């Protein structure tokens, strides 16, 4: 297995871990963590392709990763403040309430 395929398989595995968590966890914060894991897996993909790709001096992979990190940080901040606002309303972070919301 060439190094590039091993990195790609690793990033696919990390992506599926994040996806599994985002789809099966109950708390909205854990779903956000899953989303962050998925973004990180994509970043790893970019860097692996930059390293082994045909034109590393164009720096496309590195630039994309830097912007992706910035966007992920912004999205985590806004996402968490949304979760906080919803928590203030419903007093829980549960995505599957067992009874109907009574507000």
């Amino acid at each position, binding site marked *: 297995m060439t190094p590039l395929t091993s990195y790609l398989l690793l990033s696919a595995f990390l992506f599926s871990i994040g996806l*599994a968590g985002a*789809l099966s966890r109950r708390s909205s914060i854990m779903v956000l963590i899953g989303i962050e894991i998925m973004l990180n897996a994509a970043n790893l993909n970019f860097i692996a392709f930059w390293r082994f790709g045909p034109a590393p001096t164009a720096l496309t992979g590195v*630039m994309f990763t830097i912007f992706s990190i910035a966007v992920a940080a912004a999205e985590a901040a806004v996402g968490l403040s949304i979760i906080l606002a919803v928590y203030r309303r419903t007093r829980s972070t549960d995505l599957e309430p067992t009874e109907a919301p009574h507000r």
Partner: protein
Amino acid sequence: MTLVFLILAAITILGLGAAMSLRNPVHCVVGLTIGFLGLAALYLQLGAQFVGLTQVLVYVGAVAILIIFAIMMMRSSESPEQQPYSRSWRVGVAIAFAVYCVLGWAVHFGAHTLPTQAATPELSVQQIGDALLHRFVLPLEIIAVLLTAALIGAGVLALQDPAGEVRGPR
């Protein structure tokens, strides 16, 4: 598939796997931090020094701390969740497994078309700075606006007291 890659991949998989499967949210964040550090080490191994260090600075130093604060503020760490997984968690895991199979199949069957450049490209921070201000200046400015909007938006969302009253102990 060198030994270093295997060790780092194992650390990353263990950390991120723990992040998604543990019961206590704070344990999950610790696992997440370990996963981020493993990924940063992988970036350093691939020769992208600046990206690896930025990953530690932003993800470990900001995003993980942010998630910790959110968990603390929402008091979800005090009592570990009775049921951390949703009722349809098997479907979720199955979908994720299916996605992994598709991606793995794509990588495996396209492996012969992939490039195999051997030498580590020289990447100085100067080149990144040049690229940011010449070729990628528009994304840079848009990111700046986006971060400002996120800062203001997150602040506004988190500061609002519902129905305008002040809660808390007197």
